[in-house]
């Protein structure tokens, strides 16, 4: 257990008399919190890092601390952004709270809705209040630990800047305020979801919420600096805009203004500071009294419904099945290929983990397009947008849809339940390439084509029907890229490999080469875009190339694929020794 956790537990212990009055078993509370914090330190975190199943360093709390400190230092510079400390603190706490909420949503959802608790804690003599309080304190300790580490550079920076001992203390209070408000905000969203939907649907919604939030962060990170004028932001007078009164970050920074720069504080600022102090208290009371018990009850339903028959998921209607079968019979007429098509379609449409990885790529396409086209100085955003609308850069927008294909193909072989893929190896399949081509076609028909239709329709609305030939050509060019990727990089059957980030240097080069190819194709297309007839004619050879490539893909043999044993070898983890709790003789 790291020193900070011990400090938190000691701090919680100081409130034992209050907690006992509220009916909490403080001894059990300490035991539960201690074990939860120990597990947190051993749990891989997702913020700023991808899941690295085989990387043992990822759990090192010191590395995480260092990284969080650096992040805090970077964000801390915002404190001195703008015309006054009020603006600087508002910008700082806006980002600070977004990061806290993001952490709560991404890293902490598993803890927040961990139904194992219902089987481990509930059969023991632990009362509801103790469990509810342990959950709230666990969340608070977890996020406070992170908040304090992240806020430490800011605390030091304001201390030096204001040359005052009071400034760091006020900054600490501001960090606590921001943290409590973030917890309240995420809890409110989760509770609202739990109250309105079924437990199973809740899980799905949480996943979609995570995707939406991550995508939003991604979009803000890439696009915001290009869409807003930072110089204008520097001179902004927040108090002149009424909407700013509703920003929690504004309430927080108002406290700093009242206590550190009282000569500048107005009545409005004083009221905002008061709102900042009162809201977390009311919020915490609301969380403990109203949200937490409801949350536990709902979690219980979530846990028990998983085992009961009530959670049976109905498959899609007969009409939709017929639709899938009809498409399958047209695009994958060979029986083995059709089987590959059908199994991929069904699994890809129903597997939450796959969808969670694939869906964000749909949003990345327009975001990356705007990121690239809005880059470069000298022009305003309006001028740049006008240039996009009147030029041929739309070609790149469609070519960027290769990101979707890459994401689909990169994840289609991986599954938590990869061992179910034994069936491919046990069946008398002479040519796995047919399964693979069925897989590829299913991904195209289920996800890529609908995405292209939506994207293409949007493009036609913006740029007019004259670009239809460009859309068709780039669609086939991307399909060629997809088959190349599948041929040289995807070395497994659908959902047949464990979820690990196995780096392979050779494939990295192939991956870069295929991306360079699609880049070249895109650039060539861009240059020739004004020659309409050439574009129409170019569709024929590119479509033919796709046909040749997919037939080549069909010829993939067992030797070209990784064996089932390989997958099993990757999955088996090494034994992890930990420091003994007690010394064994």
């Amino acid at each position, binding site marked *: 257990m790291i020193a900070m956790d011990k400090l938190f537990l000691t701090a919680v212990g100081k409130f034992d008399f209050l907690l006992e009055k509220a009916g909490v078993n403080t001894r059990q509370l300490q035991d539960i919190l201690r074990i939860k914090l120990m597990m947190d330190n051993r749990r891989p975190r997702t913020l700023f890092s991808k899941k690295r199943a085989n990387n043992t360093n990822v759990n090192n709390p010191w590395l995480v601390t260092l990284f969080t400190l650096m992040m805090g230092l970077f964000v801390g510079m915002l404190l001195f952004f703008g015309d006054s400390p009020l603006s600087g603190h508002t910008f700082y706490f806006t980002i600070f709270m977004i990061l806290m909420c993001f952490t709560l949503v991404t890293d902490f959802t598993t803890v927040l809705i961990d139904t194992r608790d219902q*089987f481990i804690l*509930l*059969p023991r003599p632990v*009362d509801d209040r103790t469990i509810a309080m342990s959950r709230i304190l666990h969340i608070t300790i977890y996020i406070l630990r992170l908040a304090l580490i992240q806020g430490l550079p800011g605390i030091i920076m304001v201390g030096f800047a204001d040359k005052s001992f009071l400034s760091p203390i006020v900054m600490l209070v501001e960090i606590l305020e921001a943290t409590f408000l973030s917890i309240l905000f995420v809890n409110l969203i989760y509770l609202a979801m739990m109250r309105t939907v079924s437990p199973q649907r809740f899980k799905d919604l949480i996943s979609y919420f995570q995707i939406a939030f991550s995508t939003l962060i991604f979009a803000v990170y890439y696009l915001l600096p290009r869409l807003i004028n930072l110089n204008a932001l520097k001179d902004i007078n927040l108090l002149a805009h009424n909407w700013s009164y509703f920003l929690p970050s504004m309430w927080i920074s108002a406290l700093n203004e009242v206590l550190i720069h009282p000569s500048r504080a107005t009545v409005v600022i004083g009221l905002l500071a008061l709102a900042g102090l009162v809201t977390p208290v009311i919020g915490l009371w609301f969380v403990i009294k109203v949200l937490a018990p409801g949350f536990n009850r709902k979690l219980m339903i979530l846990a028990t419904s998983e085992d009961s028959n*009530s959670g049976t998921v109905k498959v899609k209607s007969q009409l939709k099945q017929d639709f899938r079968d009809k498409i399958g019979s047209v695009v994958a007429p060979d029986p083995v290929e059709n089987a590959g098509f059908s199994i991929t379609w069904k699994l890809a449409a129903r597997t939450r983990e796959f969808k969670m990885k694939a869906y964000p790529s749909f949003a990345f396409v327009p975001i990356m397009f705007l990121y690239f086209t809005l880059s470069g100085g000298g022009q305003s955003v309006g001028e740049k947008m006008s240039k996009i609308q009147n030029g041929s850069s739309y070609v790149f927008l469609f070519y960027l849809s290769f990101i979707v294909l890459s994401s689909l193909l990169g994840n289609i072989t991986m599954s938590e339940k990869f061992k179910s893929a034994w069936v491919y190896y046990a069946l008398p399949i002479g040519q796995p390439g047919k399964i693979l081509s069925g897989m590829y076609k299913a991904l195209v028909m289920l996800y890529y084509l609908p995405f292209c239709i939506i994207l293409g329709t949007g493009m036609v609305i913006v740029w007019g029907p004259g670009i239809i030939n460009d859309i068709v050509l780039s669609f086939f060019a991307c399909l060629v890229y997809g088959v190349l990727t599948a041929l040289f990089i995807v070395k497994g059957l659908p959902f047949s490999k464990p979820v690990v980030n196995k780096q392979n240097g050779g494939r990295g080069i192939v991956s870069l080469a295929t991306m360079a190819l699609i880049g070249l194709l895109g650039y060539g297309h861009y240059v020739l875009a004004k020659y309409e007839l050439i574009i129409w004619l170019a569709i024929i050879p590119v479509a033919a190339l796709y046909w040749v490539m997919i037939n080549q893909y069909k010829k993939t043999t067992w030797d070209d694929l990784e064996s089932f044993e390989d997958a099993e070898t990757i999955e088996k983890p090494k034994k992890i020794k*930990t420091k*003994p*709790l007690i010394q*064994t003789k």
Partner: protein
Amino acid sequence: MTDTPLIQIRDLSKSYGEKLVLKHLTLDIFPGQVIGYIGPNGAGKSTTVKILTGLIPDFKGQVTVDGLDMSINSLEIKKLIGYVPENAELYDVLTPMEYLDFIGKLYNMEEGMLHDRAKKLLTAFGLSDNINNRMDTFSKGMKQKVLLISGIIHNPKIIVLDEPLSGLDANAVIMIKELIVRLKEEGKTIFYCSHMMDVVEKVSDRILLINKGEIIADGTFESLKQNHSDTLEGIFAKLTGRESSGSEADAIINSFD
């Protein structure tokens, strides 16, 4: 064995949505009994177990354990019960010793005694070499053993076992069977839920057969045998309407024609 039931279930009903899983169950379980609780999938076994162990608080009817009402004194009841769930639900980033230390403390066990007992139990279950290894590297059988230990570490009056042999090797199965017999000799009341008929037949001194949320047979193996069939499998098949398994097999074979 006394005449006062240790567990009393009266008119117990439970539904999930519109589906009634338990239908007005009434049952007395006496101290020292080993109850073999059997039934087909979806019959209501797990739901009964979860209500008995306080996992499902919203049910209709009355459940009393050692004179304590489950709706009012679930906490006191949980102190009397040791529960081993079917699935290996445990915090597997912990070591077995850390996990047992945590569970023991929730039962308010004295630390020295807890560590001593945990060590002895882990050794007895053949896990002494893995005491300080994280459980996420364990096999299903090893995890199941840790679960079993966590269910008995506080020396409970009642032990509820939900498919405890799942994932265990043959030697471990023999050991658990022997353990159940020894726990019975120690005066423990055991509620043993399983699909393994041969084990139920051997270790239980009372068998309860549940089907579609209702108890359809209740008695010793000998008494059930007299009324129905020579084997528990046969009794099970007859009472749950699967007597015609031979004709089902015929139908399967005939489908190749």
